[in-house]
């Protein structure tokens, strides 16, 4: 799997996203500056978290309209894989890849803490290595992670099983108390129609080392690697 990390002015989780594949597979991703139009033939494009353009105006609004995003769109339309984390998720929503929007946390404050996520579908390149219903501990760090979409869209997301992760209690129950940012239906991450684009608010790349408290997040990237390598293998052999 060849990965690329997009860097926007103000991105600040780009280092973390860069080191993620490096730590897990020893393979450094390509770094792609927001003005570039060359995704360096990456299979998986990671849109990192962290305050592109300072989160001014609306989180992800300005990044969504930068040149490189047109290439990412083309990449996705070609069936390429895209993972948007935190600000990356906001950018994907702002640029219309994924439905809905991320509103201010219901606390009206920035929230950084470990949350418990429940995998809602194993049927995606990013969750293939996970069991449906399995739990992971991953940190959130955002001021605007309160997922919102209209009724129609929600029904569609549910119908097509495109909710990838939900915020749950340590026992695995959806409940208001553990849905810190107030997301609709406790949604923490959603998939595109072709399931190859995932946007999620929590930070799996920050939870991929026991030293830092949890390595549960590694499964997301490992799943993607497996899915992509199999596909590429199949392509070669087929």
């Amino acid at each position, binding site marked *: 799997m060849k990965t690329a990390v997009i860097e926007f002015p103000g991105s600040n989780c780009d280092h973390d996203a860069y080191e993620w594949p490096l730590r897990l597979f020893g393979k450094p991703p390509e770094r792609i500056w927001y003005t570039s139009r060359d995704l360096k033939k990456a299979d998986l494009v990671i849109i990192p978290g962290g305050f592109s353009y300072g989160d001014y*105006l*609306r989180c992800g*609004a*300005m990044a969504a*309209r930068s040149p490189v995003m047109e290439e990412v769109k083309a990449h996705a339309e070609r069936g390429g894989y895209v993972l948007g984390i935190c600000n990356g998720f906001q950018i994907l*929503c*702002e640029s219309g890849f994924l*439905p*809905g*929007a991320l*509103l*201010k946390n*219901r606390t*009206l404050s920035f929230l950084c803490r470990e949350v418990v996520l429940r995998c809602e579908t194993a049927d995606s390149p990013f969750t293939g290595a996970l069991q449906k219903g399995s739990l992971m501990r991953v940190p959130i760090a955002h001021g605007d992670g*309160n997922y*919102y*979409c*209209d009724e129609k869209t929600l029904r569609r997301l549910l119908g097509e099983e495109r909710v990838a992760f939900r915020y749950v209690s340590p026992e695995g129950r959806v409940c208001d108390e553990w849905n810190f940012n*107030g997301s609709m239906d406790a949604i923490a991450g959603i998939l595109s129609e072709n399931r190859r684009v995932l946007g999620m608010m929590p930070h799996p790349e920050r939870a991929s080392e026991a030293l830092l408290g949890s390595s549960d997040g590694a499964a997301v990237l490992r799943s993607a690697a497996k899915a992509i390598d199999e596909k590429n293998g199949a392509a070669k052999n087929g």
Partner: protein
Amino acid sequence: MKARVHVFLKEGVLDPQGKAVANALKTLGFEEILSVRQGKFFDIETSLLPKEGSEERLREYCKKLLANPVIENFKVEVVEP
């Protein structure tokens, strides 16, 4: 040309900030408050001369950047010739 653009949340999209402000005002003793909705506005100076069509241009700004159609509506006005 000077213009002012208002961007506000669509009906039905909940506005936690506005709600918080309303509650805060009530606790401050302004019991008459029924509801508050919060929005953003932009005062924009451009080198264009106002003519008919100006507003279309302003709407462009909104569609391209200032407003998120999923949750927001907008209103544009040319402020002073």
